[in-house]
């Protein structure tokens, strides 16, 4: 992983990127820090989100690199979850929601009219704030994704996928004797890991996590955080969290949102030790939030 440490980027191969940054620089609420990375997995340019007439996200530019964990922090209502939900078009399910701008996944605009959300979401999975296992058995919960996408051809293949997904989610040992019991019967932390296993089973490239630990106790949280760290090797992870400690623990880069604006983005260490923007500093030092 390679990060540019300069605040103002040199000319990057993508011209559009530079233009945008120039525009961003002219804005009085310009994003401080390095928004772009080389060879990003996802690239967001000038993203605006509206709920009816209300603007929830205001011209956000951000890159998400390969095999990194990027944390999005900020006070509640700052738009960090809304932004995350743009990344696999989960906002489509909300009628009044409108997204403008450009979000590229490997150079493909995911808001392209012709693009199909079904394979997109197979590529960009999502884990939610509240564990939401389906009212099915543990096995069926994990098997659901591979089954609908037709990823496996036989029952034994499916067994393999389920087992490996549960293993990688660190849940296998706890549930291997009761795969046929309902997923809703697990504890909160187990449910959340089941949801992660369910997401992994489809074989995505990016995993979005929307405050995955906010409904869990500290021990379960620690387990999930360890899991995120392991998953980084294979997946790109974007995580929204309200806990600054969590962001510091699991992420390499951190983006700070405030009232729909992306205020500052940079390496996690730098953001927490030496924030450039006044608002970031106020938030990190606990003056509000």
């Amino acid at each position, binding site marked *: 992983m390679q990060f540019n440490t300069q605040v103002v980027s040199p000319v990057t191969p993508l011209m559009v990127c530079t233009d945008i940054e120039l525009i961003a620089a002219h804005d009085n609420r310009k994003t401080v820090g390095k928004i772009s990375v080389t060879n990003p997995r996802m690239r967001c340019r000038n993203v605006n989100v509206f709920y009816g007439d209300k603007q929830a996200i205001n011209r956000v530019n951000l890159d998400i690199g390969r095999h990194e964990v990027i944390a999005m922090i900020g006070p509640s209502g700052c738009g960090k979850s809304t932004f995350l939900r743009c990344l*696999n078009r*989960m906002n489509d*399910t909300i*009628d009044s929601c409108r997204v403008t701008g450009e979000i590229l996944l490997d150079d493909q605009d995911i808001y392209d009219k012709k693009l199909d*959300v*079904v*394979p*997109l*979401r*197979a590529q960009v*999975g*999502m*884990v*939610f704030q*509240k564990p*939401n*296992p*389906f*009212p*099915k058995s543990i096995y069926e919960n994990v098997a*659901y*994704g591979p089954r*609908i*996408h037709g990823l496996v051809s036989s029952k034994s293949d499916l067994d393999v996928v389920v087992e490996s997904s549960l293993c990688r989610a660190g849940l296998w040992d706890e549930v291997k004797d009761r795969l046929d019991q309902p997923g809703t019967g697990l504890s909160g932390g187990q449910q959340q890991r089941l*949801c992660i296993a*369910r*997401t992994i089973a*489809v074989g995505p490239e990016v995993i979005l996590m929307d405050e995955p630990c906010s409904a869990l106790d500290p021990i379960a949280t620690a387990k999930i955080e360890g899991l995120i760290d392991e998953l980084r090797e294979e997946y790109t992870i974007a995580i929204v969290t309200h806990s600054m400690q969590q962001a510091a623990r699991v992420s390499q880069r951190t983006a700070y949102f405030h009232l729909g604006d992306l205020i500052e983005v940079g390496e996690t260490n730098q953001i927490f030790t030496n924030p450039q923007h006044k608002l970031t500093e106020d938030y990190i030092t606990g003056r509000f939030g």
Partner: protein
Amino acid sequence: MHLPTLLFILALLCVFSFWIGKRRALIIADGKHCNLHSLPGYYGYYASLWCAIPALVVLVFWTGFESSIITTLVSRELPVALQSLPSDRLNLVINDIQNLVSGNIVSGEIDPAMRAAADHYQHLQQISQAALTVVVLALAVLGLLLAYRQIHQAQRARNWVERVIMFFLISSSSIAVFTTIGIVLSVLFEAIRFFQAVPISDFLLGLKWSPQMAIREDQVGSSGVFGAIPLFAGTMLISFIAMLVAAPIGLMAAIYLSEYASKKMRNITKPLLEILAGIPTVVYGFFAALAVAPFIRDSGEWIGLDVSSESALAAGLVMGVMIIPFVSSLSDDVINAVPQAMRDGSYALGATHSETIRQVIIPAALPGIVGGMLLAVSRAIGETMIVVMAAGLSANLTANPLQAVTTVTVQMVTLLVGDQEFDSPKTLAAFALGLMLFVTTLVLNVIALYVVRKYREQYE
């Protein structure tokens, strides 16, 4: 005095009591509210209630029992020849007397004894009316005087009035319980009388139903046969056909409306479905008998099938249409109760809309849907007018939907409509059928309501 006039005078008295009670309170308090325990209006209500309640209670009971008491008195005065008649004939005579009194046409010839009895009846009625007027008005005035004398400064009029209101509230809520008890008792007693005449095992297990001849004892071979199995089978056949229509269509309509339809389409379609739900069953019955049954018979003939003109299929089909909106609105509620998080989880995995619905939403909503279906079945079983008008009277024991069958409710209507004495097994059979119907639907409803309630609690 006529009843409406009496009620009007009573109402006037109440208004007067309110005014006088309020005035009295103000006089006692020297015109200052703060000297009183409650607001002066409450003293008005106090007087008003004292004036109205005893009078109304007497009024209701008096009118409720007036006719039966007078009838007893009159029948005691009847000539011995008439009195010694068997009870069913005596009832007819008394009926004739009552008809004479109200000036209707009488079934037989009017003999002088009956004319005399009718005059006697009328005379008693007049006395009763006059006495009622006097008693009610006297009670009202007495109540008012009592209240007037009781009003004093420290009197807690508000608490008293509120207690009376509370009593009214509680008794109104208890009506539901009394209704249930009333249903159970009335149906049970008559059913027990029926089972004294016809053994319960014959009723529940008998394969033949022909109640028609059991009216007069002197007829040869007059015993009716009361085996209810054909009725139960017919009811089940028609309900089954109805559910076959209503369950898939209602469920799919609910799914389409809540998951796919645009807001505009929903705004148009939902009220239309509500109209379908609001159409009286007698209209459905007419439609079934007039349009659907002939259509089915003709198309059956066209492909060479022998279809009865009162086929179970026609009744079941139309009943199914009637139940569609019921199923769809219950399913709609249930589907909307599935949390959004469940859908999000499925969409985030890349499931399509229909995959989410079929594999996540419906399994999640299943208990609620099942509960709704049970309620729909209970409705189909108890539905009366459609089957009365479109299904037959002949109690065939068949599973062929193209033949005519009869149902429990049809038989209840045919047994009870028209003039019947109250103690022939034929009439009582209707109550036995009613008992079966009530018990079946009660069990279905209780299970369904329990399931739906549990389901709702799960997601609340």
